[in-house]
């Protein structure tokens, strides 16, 4: 018997500020629909008069999915992608009774628990070590957050430095409540890596869902290097996870040691510099953590007939490069991706999450053609929160936005600013 296929896709993009929240509704004949929620998180509210709370967004999702979610996808653990699953907004989503929850392989419960193997003797052991280390890094991010009030009061540590520390620290904490809520949600959980079969044929009839990332450590040496499967590689970061003292008390390193009552004259030039360098060190470490977490992001390709929808979460180059360059079937993947109809712009439009030549350069529908046939791009972002123009790291990256505006049908959440229109519906006929 031929499986039914969707006749159209409706995509709801919500302005949640700095974060991602997108609902896919696959509509079939006779008014039936199947729904997929891709991420539900925010670290900074939208910038207009009365921005929605996550509860507002959850209720809107409930309305638009007709009270039933079929699949929930949490691309990775960053707060700007999963924070909404915690608390009352999470309860609303849970009440929509999703059947399947899809997360990256790094989120498999228990994977980090038995991470004490002395050697990486199997791919799974390597994965365990990696996820255990991620757990410690989340703890480091939390401890960095604890230090911010003290750093903010330190001469020489600028407000922009502490702002960035706070932002990255908040993004990279463990988000335990949201993680727990996701684990409790749904009848079935899939922890996916490149090439995983998600078994969604019955849940989403006529829709193929292919996992293009993240690769496992065994699949991608680059991810392995990034993720420090080898103890050598990441000692600074991992060790700092233990080293950063928590609040309220900073422990006495040398009890009883003689200390100076005041900073001696010869040290007065240097001491504020040491304070600043400490803050910069912590910032560098949480930036690395941020990159590592982005590279655990799911990259999903939905295929309905010849229509392709590409959702890469926050994947950065290291994650992309396996599917686009190193996988045995990467040539075939690139060929198919060239026909992408809808592209969710990676990592809120950052400089290294939309591979410029390997991915963007291959999109056949990008250009000046018929708007009805052109590539549709979805950009969920909020400017001024991440990176800086002077360093060429601003999010969204100006050059990329110019390109998206010029060569695609861009839906930018920053344009959804009215109190009554903080979401946008995009209809893709099939």
């Amino acid at each position, binding site marked *: 018997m031929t499986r039914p296929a969707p006749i159209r896709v409706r995509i709801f993009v919500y302005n949640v500020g700095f974060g991602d929240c997108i609902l896919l509704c696959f509509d079939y004949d006779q008014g039936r629909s199947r729904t997929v929620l891709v991420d539900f998180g925010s670290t900074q509210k939208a910038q207009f008069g009365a921005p929605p709370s996550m509860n507002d967004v959850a209720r809107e999702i409930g309305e638009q999915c007709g009270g039933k979610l079929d699949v929930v996808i949490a691309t990775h653990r960053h707060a700007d992608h999963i924070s909404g699953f915690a608390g009352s907004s999470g309860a609303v989503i849970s009440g929509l009774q999703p059947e399947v929850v899809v997360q990256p392989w790094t989120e498999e419960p228990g994977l980090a628990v038995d991470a004490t193997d*002395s*050697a990486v003797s199997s791919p799974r052991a390597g994965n365990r070590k990696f996820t255990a280390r991620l757990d410690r890094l989340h703890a480091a991010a939390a401890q960095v957050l604890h230090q911010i009030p003290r750093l903010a009061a330190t001469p020489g540590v600028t407000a922009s430095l502490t702002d960035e520390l706070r932002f990255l620290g908040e993004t990279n904490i463990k988000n335990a409540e949201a993680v727990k809520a996701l684990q409790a949600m749904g009848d079935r959980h899939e922890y996916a890596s490149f090439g995983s079969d998600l078994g969604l044929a019955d849940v989403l009839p006529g829709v193929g869902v292919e996992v293009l990332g993240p690769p496992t450590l065994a699949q991608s040496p*680059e991810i392995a*290097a*990034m993720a420090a499967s080898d*103890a*050598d*590689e*990441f000692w*600074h*970061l*991992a*060790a*700092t996870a*233990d*080293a*950063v*003292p928590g609040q309220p008390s*900073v*422990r*006495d*390193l*040398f009890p009883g*040691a003689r*200390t*100076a009552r*005041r*900073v*001696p004259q*010869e*040290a007065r030039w*240097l*001491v504020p*510099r*040491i*304070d600043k*360098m*400490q803050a910069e*060190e*912590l910032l*560098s*470490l949480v930036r*690395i953590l941020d990159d590592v977490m982005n590279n655990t992001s799911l990259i999903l390709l939905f295929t309905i007939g010849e229509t392709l929808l590409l959702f890469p979460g926050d994947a950065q*180059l*290291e994650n992309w*490069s396996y599917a686009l360059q190193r996988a045995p079937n990467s040539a075939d993947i690139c060929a198919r991706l060239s026909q992408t109809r809808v592209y969710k712009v990676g990592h809120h439009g950052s*400089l*290294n999450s*939309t*591979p*410029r*030549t*390997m991915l963007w350069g291959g999109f056949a529908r990008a250009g000046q053609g018929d708007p009805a046939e052109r590539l549709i791009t979805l950009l969920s972002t909020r400017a001024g929160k991440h990176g800086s*123009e002077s*360093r*060429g790291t601003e999010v969204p*990256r100006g*050059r*990329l936005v110019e*390109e998206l505006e010029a060569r695609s049908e861009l839906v930018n959440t920053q344009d959804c600013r009215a109190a009554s229109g903080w979401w946008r519906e995009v209809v893709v006929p099939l």
Partner: protein
Amino acid sequence: MAVSSSAQIRVVAQDPSVRVDGRILTALVSLPVEDAREGPTGHRVQVIDYDATTRTMYARARPLDPADPSDEDIMGDPAFHARNVYGLVMATLARFEYALGRRVAWGFPGHQLKVVPHAFAVANAFYSPDSEALLFGYFDRGERTIFTCLSHDVVVHETTHALLHGLRGRFLRASSADQAAFHEAFADVVALLSVFSMREVVQRLIDHYAGRGSRASRKGAVSASALQPDRLKRSALFALAEEMVPERDPGGIGALRRSVDLEPDQNLLNRLEFRDSHRRGEVLVAAVCHAFLEVWVRRLQALGTDMVDRERAAEEGAGIAEQLLTMAIRGLDYTPPVDLLFGDFLSAALTADTEVRPNDERYHLRETLLSSCAAYGIRPASGTPDGCWRRSDKQLRRTGVRFGSVQSDPTEMFRLIWANHRCLRLPVTAYSWVSDVRPCLRIEPEDGLPVRETVATCIQHVKITAAELGDYGLHPPPGMHPDTDIVLEGGSTLVLDEYGLLKFEISNRLPKRTDESACKRAQARLDYLFESGAYAAGSAFRGRLAAVHRLRSTQTASSRSEVW
């Protein structure tokens, strides 16, 4: 090393994880006598014991204390930590000055390097040129606190960064994969070879590692079978920063780097993973370590086939390490001032050694280093059979140049260069300056006669846009905007003999259409810089050393052509 007038200070020989008979291994190191004050503070080093995490300023420590401290004092007394860094930094500085035959300035205007033994609770240690300081962090592992300031290798490594910055400031700049790696490699080489100057430490480590599990050693002797390359390689002598990572196997020790384990392979440097500066640096370190090991084992085999006198074994190791380390440090004077490649350094070291120590029959060190480097794909840039730079046969015009001043006055040296710019092939239109000029006095080890030289470095640059690259025989890398600002660099090191005659002219010149090799090199530099993001908006190399230490292997796939 001979220090005529010296004081002694006790330091941790490796780090607190390296113990013999259950105690932390310490050693006495000799330092030049100076009027050291509490801090310790001397004329070149100022220890400032401030902890930014706990906001604590520890009291100044007594400067010298050769007493043998207990393990508890080593771990729990910040004053010992302060003396430990002071001692190791000063000893490393003295080692450089001995090799170079002159005083060595830091890479900043002041004369005192600030050293902060407990800077913050961050697992990192680095040299900050902006703050004129070495900063050592600390971190917890389980119940233990790991102090990077107690690691001999970490302290010497960071001090070497500071010294190298003073000697060749341009080597801190982005230029090529080799140059980025060289700072790390050179610092590792100095850290590893410095251990051998502490002979008692080497003796005890030989006992501890080579003797372990072998036939029972007689008093003062160790089984020759235990002194085999594989056994020695596994010891703490060839491991860098043992304490920074946990033990990986119960029978051995962990280490931040153990470059000696890198098997020779002529193609290593061409592999993608060896574009990373730490990995690439390990190739040079491995080549030097293998050369050292080969010579040492050869000498040990000559000492006997059954039992080997332990003291003699350590002495041989110390002698070889001293020669090799002196060769490496002295080689810096013979490197081009910009855009260094490993092959340049190899030729420089071999030349420096040949000039002062022509007779190499005792160790055959130069020949061994040459072959060991070849096994790792590092070939001398000189292209000569012995790897040394070719001597210059140019006769410089010296009309109006005062020889007395040319040895130390950059302006006088520039006058000499200006008068000979055609002969030296230095374009007069480029922005040019003499970055350094130093008289050097080195002593031939065999006959004790002095070798006097003057070493000067002249740097040139031109600022152009990418659209103008064609004028210099270059082309912009794909994706580079024509308006991109580009600085092309060139430079020459001139080595004059005691009569002011040109002995060596070691140059990486500005590219020129008619100079194919200079163009090839400059194009490779340009491509590397573009690929590594040096032309991206806001790119800065300030604090680069801290980042290099932190970001091992995290920049693998950041292909410049893929980012926005």
